[in-house]
């Protein structure tokens, strides 16, 4: 253990480097500000923004370039929730779960509170993620590395339980859309054999259907059509209250902390990111919060708190494998590694040994970015609230255009626009007939993880089922996850029965 941490705190003084340089503070602030507004636009993702910045900052010094990118990363992950709350369109995949209760809040005239909550909880999540990055990087890095294919499979199965949480009344309808999502996720070249699957000979489908395109269609385009169908009236917002009352934050602090830890760990795993983290956190909240202020799905505060703290905590988590092992924790850190490589720095174990100050500089910048997030997140909410009050004949065309731009800009492909329209119309039909669209998005996210990790795990076991099963008993992470799944799968009534059995026993003994 001692060797794990040896020399770890060397270079700690660099933690303060960003605070002593005006240019760095400035660029972090600019980055966070830009990130929030870019992240709020559906389709303009953090990943894209950071990769644009690589060329833009090519000739800069490393530190300011990194400061700007870290700012955009932090702001962008948070910004995704803005559109989720105001328009029911997640600005980024990690904000999908925020739509479930954020948008109902806006419909009740509480968009201000929803955004205020998402800000404070994002900052809490951000700090928890950072603390873990600061204190437990080597440990969590080891956990992330030892997460085997079988464990990813179990994690994805656990996430499948979300279908139950996300169904609005009818489980069969939720299952139908979830399975559709899994099938859509399989379109494209088989990741193992490179055989085309479900492409119907269309070359543009070889690369698969981009998940963000489906998300923009199912949420953005379909919402525009749905609102058009019902000629919905804008909702007058109560903007006096922006800062969520202290009691709400305090009451839900344990939930926020648990969600943050969950988000941090899922974010640290190289195969999963903030999108899954926030969905699992939402599911967790729905299971443990006994008396939400409103039922989940109708504007429960806890339904905003859990995903928002989880997705920002995932940022700190994603830096852990990057800094300790040179392995990206998500798509943004993958680009960050590339950007740093161009600047002649290669994050990883060698850098941690030779230049630990670099690690602390990043931690310091992230900390500063989180502080700016609180400031920029809470200001400007009044202005954002106006978005909900904009007449529908103006906002709907804007949504349509943003959906087009967003889906085109992912891969500069016109095909993606057609796909977006297709899924938009599909989502509209789903909404008209009370099929949940969120489960379809979940299906697409999980499809690839389930498919590849199941085959990978079986392959590693030389396609012997016995060898696959025996792995559960030699690998503690797998066993733990399996037990967790069994625990979640047992219905509440059964659990109470078992618990009462125990009570009676202990009573008899006494």
């Amino acid at each position, binding site marked *: 253990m001692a060797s794990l941490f040896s020399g770890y705190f060397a270079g700690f003084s660099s933690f303060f480097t960003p605070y002593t340089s005006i240019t760095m503070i400035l660029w972090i602030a600019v980055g966070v500000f830009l990130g929030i507004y870019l992240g709020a636009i559906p389709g303009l993702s953090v990943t894209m923004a950071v990769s644009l910045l690589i060329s833009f900052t090519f000739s800069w010094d490393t530190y300011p370039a990194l400061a700007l990118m870290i700012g955009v990363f932090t702001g962008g992950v948070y910004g995704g929730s803005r559109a989720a709350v105001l328009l029911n369109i997640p600005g980024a995949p990690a904000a999908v779960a925020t739509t479930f209760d954020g948008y109902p809040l806006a419909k009740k005239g509480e968009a201000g509170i929803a955004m205020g909550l998402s800000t404070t909880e994002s900052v809490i999540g951000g700090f928890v993620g950072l603390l873990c990055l600061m204190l437990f990087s080597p440990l969590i890095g080891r956990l992330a590395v030892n997460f085997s294919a079988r464990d990813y499979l179990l994690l994805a199965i656990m996430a499948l339980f979300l279908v139950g949480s996300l169904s609005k009344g009818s489980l069969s309808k939720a299952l139908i859309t979830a399975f559709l999502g899994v099938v859509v996720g399989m379109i494209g070249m088989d*990741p193992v054999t490179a055989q085309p699957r479900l492409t119907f000979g269309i070359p543009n489908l070889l690369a698969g259907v981009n998940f963000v395109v489906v998300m923009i269609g199912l949420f953005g385009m379909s919402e525009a059509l749905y609102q058009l169908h019902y000629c919905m009236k804008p909702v007058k917002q109560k903007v006096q209250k922006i800062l969520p009352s202290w009691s709400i934050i305090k009451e839900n602090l344990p939930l926020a902390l648990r969600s943050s830890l969950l988000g941090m760990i899922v974010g640290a795993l190289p195969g999963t990111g903030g999108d899954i983290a926030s969905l699992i956190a939402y599911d967790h909240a729905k299971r443990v919060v006994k008396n939400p202020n409103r039922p989940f799905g109708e504007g429960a505060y806890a339904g905003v708190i859990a995903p928002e703290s989880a997705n920002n905590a995932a940022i700190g988590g994603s830096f852990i494998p990057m800094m300790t092992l040179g392995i990206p924790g998500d798509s943004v850190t993958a680009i960050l590694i590339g950007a740093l490589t161009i600047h002649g720095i*290669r994050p990883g174990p060698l850098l941690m040994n030779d230049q630990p100050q670099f690690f602390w500089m990043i931690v310091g910048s992230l900390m500063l970015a989180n502080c700016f997030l609180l400031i920029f997140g809470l200001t400007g909410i009044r202005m954002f609230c106006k978005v909900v009050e904009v007449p529908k004949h103006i906002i709907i065309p804007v949504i349509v255009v943003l959906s087009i731009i967003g889906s085109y800009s992912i891969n500069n492909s016109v095909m993606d626009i057609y796909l977006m329209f297709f899924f938009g119309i599909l989502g509209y039909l789903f909404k008209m007939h009370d099929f949940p669209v969120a489960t379809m998005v979940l299906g697409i996210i999980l499809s690839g993880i389930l498919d590849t990790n199941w085959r990978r795990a079986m392959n590693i076991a030389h396609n012997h089922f016995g060898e696959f099963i025996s792995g559960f008993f030699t690998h503690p992470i797998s066993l733990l996850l399996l037990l967790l799944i069994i625990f979640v799968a047992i219905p509440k009534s059964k659990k109470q029965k078992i618990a009462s059995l125990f009570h009676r026993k202990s009573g008899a003994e006494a």
Partner: protein
Amino acid sequence: MKKLLSIVMASLISLVIATGCNNTASDSSSYPSKSINGYIAWAAGGGTDNVMRTICPLAQKDLGSTIVLTNKTGGTGSIATKYVYSQPADGYSLLLNAENPPLYKLLGLGTIDYDNYIPVLVMAKNVGILVVPADSKYNSYQDLVDDAKAHPGKLNIATTGVGGLPYSCFALTCMVEGIDYNAITYDGDGTLQPALISGEVDASVVAQSAAIQYIATGKMKALGVYSGERCENKELADVPSLEECNSAYEGMLDDWGPFYGAFVKKGTPDHVVKTLQDAFYKAYQTDTFQKFCENLSLQPLGYTGDQAQSFIKKWQSITCWTLYRAGATSISPADLDIPEP
């Protein structure tokens, strides 16, 4: 009424956007007269992306025109290869890709490959390192091969999919040694490397640039270098080249390996190709780019014209025939007019 207005406005704005999408034809005599589009066939942050985002800003200084870089990913780089081919041959669309297109026809990934392109510059190549987890029972290349022969099909090798670096390298080893392995496919280096460090798989091939830090910090062991000679880095100086391990590799590994290059569609006017080649070559010669290659342990090549062509042909011939002999494909390279090495 408002419903109608919404529909009208939405379609109007869409139309306005659509008009911005067309390509205006331009005069080729004064090339370049507008910005050039560079399509990177691999995702942001990866090896190809790194090389291109380093060299293109340097080349655009000499061209006097910006190169707008976009990542157009998917299909082992075949999506971008097809897309750039569908653009006019005027030198305003560059294909920035890696070693994969010469294998497309063989692997059924498409019919457009580098035969349909003129190389502007093949910038650099990478070297594959045969690595095993730090606590592996294999201490040498021979250990690994002996064990694979003793237990056919049991050796778990991590690959990044058909046509990726570990896949091509192991196809070669299988052909030379007559061994059989069990391929475990990962999405990319980001998921493959943890599996190697934790010992989930038995061995893999990792690019030199990525391998160094894991070998230096004792997270992986290197058994061999897929090259004719040893690497120059101090961390890898003790690692034998595969030619040293088995003389059957002789001649196969010289000037063979994954590479990065810029290409334009066949039919691009000669003076345009010349302008691009000169600009990219100048960028290649700069200290910035050479230093970059050194940092990443890439071997700078700087091949243009015929030299680039013959380099690519050699890679194609060796790789295609090894894949065919290893049984990875049922299409014979002979049917595709790919000569035997």
